[in-house]
């Protein structure tokens, strides 16, 4: 039995097509502006002089991120009404019948996973497509990726298969929440911070 579901993201493969983002919106019927999965476009660098030669030092890659169903979900710890809870298989849920709409979890989550739903007047977030999972299916984002840059499964298995990396720029320090996430970094990721990379599509995500 799965004790902690998790996502795998391959930053080296992701082309930034945003099919995952759109598949998530479609499956969950999210209103405009609400994104449970988001693709951050990281860009930085420019030209660097080496001796007499100018060479490009551009950093450019994408990061697809949803709720990471953290092992230590600070959102749930901060919620004053215990509306955020974790299922036996590690999926973190929001009880919209209990949520008071204070939006404190939005501040507490370092991955900005919570999005306000103006229809229900509560916060909302990725639920790992639990209905599909329970029926033996696949989360919409994983199924839609044409590059196979996303995968899901038992976190222990994902770590065996893909390694232990949980953080690349601009994601926060994983020790804050222990995200159920495994990442294969893009080759530019290690130099992103030193080359003043930024999220280029800030308003979009």
């Amino acid at each position, binding site marked *: 039995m799965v004790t902690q579901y998790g996502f795998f993201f391959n930053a080296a493969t992701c082309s930034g097509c945003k099919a995952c983002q759109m598949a998530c919106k479609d499956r969950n019927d999210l209103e405009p*502006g609400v*994104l449970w999965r*988001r693709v*951050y476009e990281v860009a930085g660098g420019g030209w660097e002089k080496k001796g007499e030669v100018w060479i490009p030092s551009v950093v450019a890659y994408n990061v697809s991120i949803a709720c990471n169903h953290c092992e230590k979900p*600070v959102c749930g*710890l*901060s*919620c*004053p*009404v*215990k509306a955020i809870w974790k299922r036996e298989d590690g999926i973190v849920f929001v009880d919209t019948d*209990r*949520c*008071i*709409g*204070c*939006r*404190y979890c*939005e*501040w*507490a*989550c*370092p991955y*900005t996973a919570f*999005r306000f739903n103006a229809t229900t*007047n*509560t916060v909302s977030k990725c639920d790992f497509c639990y209905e599909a999972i329970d029926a033996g299916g696949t989360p919409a984002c994983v199924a839609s990726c044409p590059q196979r840059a996303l995968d899901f499964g038992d976190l222990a298995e994902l770590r065996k298969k893909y390694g232990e990396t949980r953080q690349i720029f*601009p994601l*926060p320090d994983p020790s*804050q929440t222990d995200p159920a996430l495994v990442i294969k970094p893009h080759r530019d990721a290690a130099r992103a911070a030193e080359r003043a*990379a*930024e*999220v280029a599509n*800030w*308003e*979009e*995500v």
Partner: protein
Amino acid sequence: MLKEWPLVAFTIAGQMAVGIFLFVGLPLFISAGAGGNAAARETRLIVLAVVLGLLITAALLSFFHLHHPFRARRVLTNLRTSWLSREIFFELGFMALVALGALLAWRRPAEGILLKGILAAAGLAGILFILSMSKLYMLQTVPPWNQAYTPLSFFLTSLSLGALAAALVRASGAETPSRSGVFILLPFVLVAAEAALSFLIAPGHGVYGHRPGPSLRPPGEARRTIHLARLALLLAGLALIGAAMIATEGRAASGLGGNGLLAVALALVLAGQIAGRFLFYGLFGRPGR
């Protein structure tokens, strides 16, 4: 940042209530004993009523922040881990103890020791209320809030507004005017400290266009304007407190002149606090809408 007006109102009113209680309410009861003359007793009851009024206003305004206010009855269910639950717990505790103290002072003024005990507990609850309010915002995920500035600023707001109110009450002549000079000097120092703090912290808060990084991208150019407005209001308030001191030659600010100056100073400092609090909420930057 403007959409957070209910939180601005809640935090400022709550902090002001604690400040007034600590600087005016508590000292009046402790120094006056159980009885005292009718006028002094009336003043003490009015002060507690003002504190209660501020707390009730703060609580009511905070409901505008919630999208499901009728579910708020469950807000105390996560005292074990949520600072938001703890903040409300201490606010309600403070409010209940002040109300109990006011009731006792009104109906049974002779119960001196019991009354003082209840009001001392209320003072402690008030301090814990501000402390939990500070901890609530000191989130690891929001670096501009997760620093000493947050509790320092919250306590300074409470203390400066409370000290100014105390100076005003002393200047009105309801209590002994002999030590009123001290009561004007104290808000002067506290407001000066607050103005200095807001000036020093401004570059770190991106007021002058500094961009801390992608995850903290400033939302707009409004910060500079609000920061300057806050500084101007605090300095104008400070000037008036100084003028009140000079007008009374360092003695009691008795008479209409001193009172008027202090009342306007209180209004200016309060407006400066409100501007500063909007700026505080504007420090939270997040992607998307």
